[in-house]
């Protein structure tokens, strides 16, 4: 079975996700994953498991702040790691649906 993506590059079936898949998706976004990226991706995957939602920017910052500390729970830190629209890019790499209501 080939792995399917939607038109915007989000995984259609969340169970197709693997860390290797994350590396592959990140590459198409021009990001080479480091541990700093991965710990954020794990926070977002955990968020999704708990709330069945991909976080928008505001709850993303809050979740990162709660899990990894205030220094990392800042939009500027997330913007550096995932330039552009962090909430959308992280969801994509984490194999989650595109966040709703994202500015």
């Amino acid at each position, binding site marked *: 079975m080939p792995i399917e993506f939607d038109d915007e590059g989000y995984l259609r079936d969340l169970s197709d996700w693997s860390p290797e898949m994350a590396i592959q998706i990140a590459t198409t976004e021009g990001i080479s994953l480091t541990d700093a990226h991965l710990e954020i991706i794990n926070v977002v995957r955990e968020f999704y498991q708990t709330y*069945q939602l991909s976080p928008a920017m505001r709850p993303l910052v809050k979740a990162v702040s709660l899990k990894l500390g205030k220094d990392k729970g800042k939009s500027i830190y997330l913007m550096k790691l995932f330039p552009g629209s962090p909430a959308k890019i992280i969801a994509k790499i984490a194999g989650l649906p595109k966040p709703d*209501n994202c500015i």
Partner: protein
Amino acid sequence: MIDKKSILIINQSAPYGSSKARESLDVALTCSIFEMPVSLLFIGDGLYQLINNQSPDALSMKKHEAMLSALPMYDIENIYITEEDLESIGLTENDLAIPVTLIQRDAIASLIQQNDSVLTF
């Protein structure tokens, strides 16, 4: 900085039977992203949304309770129910999935007065 309008969302629909409950929370989360102060009031059948231990796997639907528990992450903490409604379905605060503020039914009017706009689902 433009003054953000405050919004009260009144929920009077049960979860799962229709999509209203989810749509309402979608609106609430969206308003929060735009930094509008959001208050939620659950009345009548809407109270059923708050019951804990929901397990909709057999219906292949998302767990409403999970979405409710995300409200604090979106800084939505003004969540109201009336004591009268809770009593009328024979439940207590221990049966609810999230912390709520109990108000009297006659306080609903002032809640509506306090907010700039009101939506009902």
